[in-house]
């Protein structure tokens, strides 16, 4: 196989690689923000109603079981190739960890704490905002973190329905097995996706440290 040596490949295709990296990163973050927002809002709406909570988690879990490949393929005729399909589908996937953790986290607040809050006259909304959310935050954040990792990976897979990002490299490598650049593309693609995942994870460690209320910091 006569491809470029890896370092030379990197410098030769630097602009493309950086471009792909940026697009992939931004897209992942964008989708994560949307998934977090929708997931948390939905979670806050249903967490107190067992049936609604179970139903929404159940529905999303069923969705989750379906392989992304299949789901992308199913929506292409309706939403078209590219981001039209990519964004909604990936967002739906990203919802589950956030929703599940939001519900679990909000429900895990000690009933004694809630009782004293009500006892001193705090209203429903205030309790949610000032008591439940801060106490549930570590759990919710953990869910967002899982979601982030998931989304980064899915953006790569979505390349096969035309979502432009680092996934292109990987699928190109896959479809041109044994060609000169297969190895380079595969390694570059995998490495860069891993870097994005690690960056996101590191960002989370930071966010967790900064945003966890002092009293809860373990």
């Amino acid at each position, binding site marked *: *196989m006569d491809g470029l040596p890896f370092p030379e490949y990197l410098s030769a295709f630097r602009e493309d690689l950086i471009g792909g990296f940026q697009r992939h990163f931004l897209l992942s973050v964008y989708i994560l923000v949307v998934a977090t927002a929708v997931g948390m809002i939905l979670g806050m709406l249903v967490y107190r109603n067992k049936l609604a909570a179970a139903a929404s988690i159940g529905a999303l879990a*069923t969705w989750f*079981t*379906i*392989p*992304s*490949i*299949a*789901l*992308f*393929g*199913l929506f*292409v*005729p309706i939403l078209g190739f590219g981001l039209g399909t990519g964004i909604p589908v990936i967002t739906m996937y990203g919802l589950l960890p956030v929703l599940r953790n939001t519900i679990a986290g909000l429900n895990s607040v000690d009933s004694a704490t809630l009782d004293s809050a009500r006892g001193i006259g705090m209203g429903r909304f205030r309790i949610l905002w000032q008591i439940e959310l801060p106490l549930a935050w570590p759990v919710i954040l953990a869910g967002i973190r*899982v979601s982030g*990792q*998931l989304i*980064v*990976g*899915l953006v*790569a*897979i979505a390349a*096969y*329905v035309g979502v432009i990002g680092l*996934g292109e490299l*990987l*699928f190109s*490598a*896959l*479809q041109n*097995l*044994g060609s000169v650049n*297969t*190895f380079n*593309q*595969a*390694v570059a*693609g*995998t490495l860069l*996706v*891993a870097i994005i*995942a690690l960056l996101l*994870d590191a960002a989370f460690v930071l966010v967790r440290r900064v945003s966890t209320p002092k009293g809860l910091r373990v």
Partner: protein
Amino acid sequence: MTTATEQVALDVQPVLARRDRLFVWTDLLIPLLCVVVVVSELFYLSQAPLDSIERDLVSNARIWEYTQQHILITIVIVVLVLAVAVPLGVLITRRGTAWIAPFVLGFGNVGQAAPIVGLIAIIGSFAVGFWPVVLIIAAFSILPVLRNTIVGIQQVDVGVKDAARGMGMSPRGILFGVELPLAVPIIAAGARTSLVLAVAVVPLGTDLNAGGLGRIVFPAIKLDRLEALVAGAVFIAVLALLIDWLGGIAQRLLTPRGIR
């Protein structure tokens, strides 16, 4: 000696069995949904205006053949994963080697498909066929199941393990009689996730010629035949749901009655 009928227990009323019945009617929802979807899709395909390429792509013969391959690959992967991950998990939780556990557990989520694609591409340059696909996917699936095995064994109540040791059960007796039975639900959950992951990743290995329903999906994209794409996607989705459902049933059956 007073009998139960004469007793008025000061103790709190005992909690009744959580789940007396093994199966509930809601269990049938998913398989029913799947059957309906498959039948509808097949019917639709038979009626839809497809050109010859597409029709060939989604012929019943092909669908059946690819589905069988897909299932076979999936099963082999999971069997391999369990055969490696569970014994390994047991080993890591033994007294002498327990220090390894935190490292394994801290490894984070390697469960993304992206690295798998890369690896498939690289290995696929050298070797194609059934076993390369199986081994690559299995390799990636070991960590989650290993993690579940470790967590499952570690969460067995300390008091129960102490009582078992204190009454004179041998280490082997404790492992097979107490730890593993009580860890089964969590290990089974891991195996179930592994199954679904396998179903999802097998199509990515299509270019390695191991077979599977990816052979409908990827050519459909290349040839821009959307009906076939949807068909392939539908079948993959249904397969995943059914295998997950079977996994759930198996999980329930394998869980010891006392802790269901």
